[in-house]
């Protein structure tokens, strides 16, 4: 069994869901980024999505545009993301690690070369937000050859045919985009989210992980019955951005503990 399947099965057996925080590799700087990943692990994160910085992140809102920009100013490349994966893997043998990258940096690195390097660094899966199923065959073949899960995305606009197609092809999990829009923290969840998740759930038994706009413990509580895990990204970057450098780790760990409690249906301590 893969690390991802083991994680989802273990959490499910306890009536809990997985918490998978995201950070852009190299943000706020390469060393602090790795410290933040380690602190989140201690605070209850189950695994991570590691972002590969890109100059033109067209599916991202302002928060992640800034994290990408900051990371690039610190010289971040795909190697920075591989370094972060290795650092996490040294600390945690079983935590799933996913890379999130726009397609062009992967093409420049070489798809097969990237997949091989990702596996060597301890990664489990790859997510590419600008690569729809129709264009994914070369990268899926490279992932499959290297032993990585290729993660498909579905959104509220996905038609029944597309949901069925992805359900048939998916492995690892399906990344459900919670809203029609770009990444970024939101106050409220989209009102048609339960219906969207129910449509996907009915079409496939592959685990579902929800991302985009998942910011608060109450969001996690609200979707706990419908998904196997959540990805929290911009809300954490917003905390990193607004905290004083010496308070960052504590503030992020605090939010991760709250989210962990919500994902495990424990009372959230104030």
């Amino acid at each position, binding site marked *: 069994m893969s690390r991802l399947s083991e994680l989802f099965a273990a959490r499910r057996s306890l009536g809990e869901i997985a918490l998978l925080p995201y950070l852009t590799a190299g943000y706020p700087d390469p060393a602090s980024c790795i410290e933040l990943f380690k602190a989140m692990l201690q605070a209850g994160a189950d695994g991570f999505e590691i972002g590969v910085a890109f100059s033109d992140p067209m599916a991202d809102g302002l928060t992640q545009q800034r994290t990408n920009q900051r990371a690039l100013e610190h010289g971040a490349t795909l190697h920075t993301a591989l370094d972060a994966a290795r650092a996490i893997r040294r600390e945690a043998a079983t935590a799933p690690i996913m890379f999130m990258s726009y397609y062009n940096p992967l093409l*420049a690195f070489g798809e097969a070369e990237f997949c091989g390097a990702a596996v060597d660094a301890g990664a489990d899966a790859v997510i590419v937000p600008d690569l729809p199923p*129709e*264009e994914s065959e070369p990268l899926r073949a490279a992932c499959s050859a290297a032993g990585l899960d290729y993660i498909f995305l579905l959104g509220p606009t996905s038609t029944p045919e597309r949901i069925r197609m992805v359900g048939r092809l998916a492995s690892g999990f399906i990344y459900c985009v919670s809203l029609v829009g770009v990444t970024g923290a939101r106050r409220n969840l989209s009102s048609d989210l339960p219906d969207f998740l129910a449509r996907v759930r009915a079409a496939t038994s592959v685990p579902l992980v929800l991302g985009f706009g998942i910011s608060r413990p109450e969001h996690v509580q609200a979707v706990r019955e419908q998904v196997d895990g959540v990805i929290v990204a911009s809300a954490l970057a917003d905390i990193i951005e607004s905290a004083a450098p010496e308070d960052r780790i504590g503030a992020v760990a605090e939010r991760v503990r709250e989210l962990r409690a919500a994902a495990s249906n424990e009372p959230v301590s104030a």
Partner: protein
Amino acid sequence: MSSVPRPASPQPATVSPHSNAATAAGRFGAYGGQFVPEVLMPAVLELDRAFEAAWNDPSFHQQLDELSRSYVGRPTPLYRAGRLSDKVGLDVYLKREDLAHTGAHKINNALGQALLALRLGKRRIIAETGAGQHGVATATVCAMLGLDAVVYMGELDIERQAPNVYRMKLLGAEVRPVGSGTRTLKDAVNEAIRDWVSNVDTSHYMLGSAVGPHPYPLMVRQFQSVIGHEARKQVLEMAGRLPDYALACVGGGSNAIGLFHGFIDDPGVQLIGVEAAGRGMELGHHAATLVAGTPGVLHGARSYVLQDQHGQIADTHSISAGLDYPGVGPEHSYLKDSGRARYVAIRDEAALQAFRDLCLLEGIIPALESSHAIAYLPQVAAEAPGALVVVNLSGRGDKDVGSYAKATGEQLAQSVS
């Protein structure tokens, strides 16, 4: 590996007789495709079907042709530029897209897409603009058809194309400044895509060049190929033969692909696309994507891209805002690799000189974009003295007089003294 069903490819056989423009799954050879977030895929597929249906519907063409005639002013003239011909030692004909309503070829595409948006029932139009010509064309057709227009424009471009910003506002469009990245066309496209991702149910993205995910490169080319079809007919009438060369500037490449398609099946006509060499050919100082770029994926399509070794999109520079873009249409990438067209680059100062030359020799103020094509004529003459050349004068340069004055150290207010 399980296969993913692909959308039916659009109708190249019926739309276009040009067999070299292969469009299986929106592909031009290895280029093109649909590299967009899943949330946009249904909209992109819907647009593909709607365009195909419209293009095969005689009533759509009737409406488009009538407005092209009575509103845009088509056909635009082909003009034999006698004094320019004498100076460069060629027989030069200018296709006067600068005389189309709003002063550039951009309206051909804006009008076609606006009529398509009406068929889709989408009354909110999103657009990006570099030089402002596509933004003005968008604002214009939206005013005429009663649609809402939101135009994204980089802050740097807002500074250097101020007259067009005001024109868009006068025409009722909302201009949204884009301060991210290089604050130019590339970033305006990013922001327009983000708007589209967020409002896809109500909004049509009126992409202004032959770039982006399928069906845009095909659709924009079809709406712009009126340029080439008219020019071919006109040059046959006026010169009695086909040209030796067809020349156009290339940013994203919409005016060039429109001109080229009039002559693409005439093997005796050499097709030349002129990109912006900016301050020189070091990465970051130019926008010559086909001359100096490598294949990659940007803004929804596989095509040549200006990028560093890590796949980060490079900064660009051109004095011409409309050419200042690190990507290019996928069909141009295909034409480059196949050898059917060739691509060259012209520096800022040569474009400025050509701008002035056309003012003084022909009484035409050309857009700085189009000036790049004019600037390449001496090199054509060196290769083929006396050759018959059709140049697409894609836009007029009223918007650029401030940039010209600044570049040459003059001030607009003082220049009369």
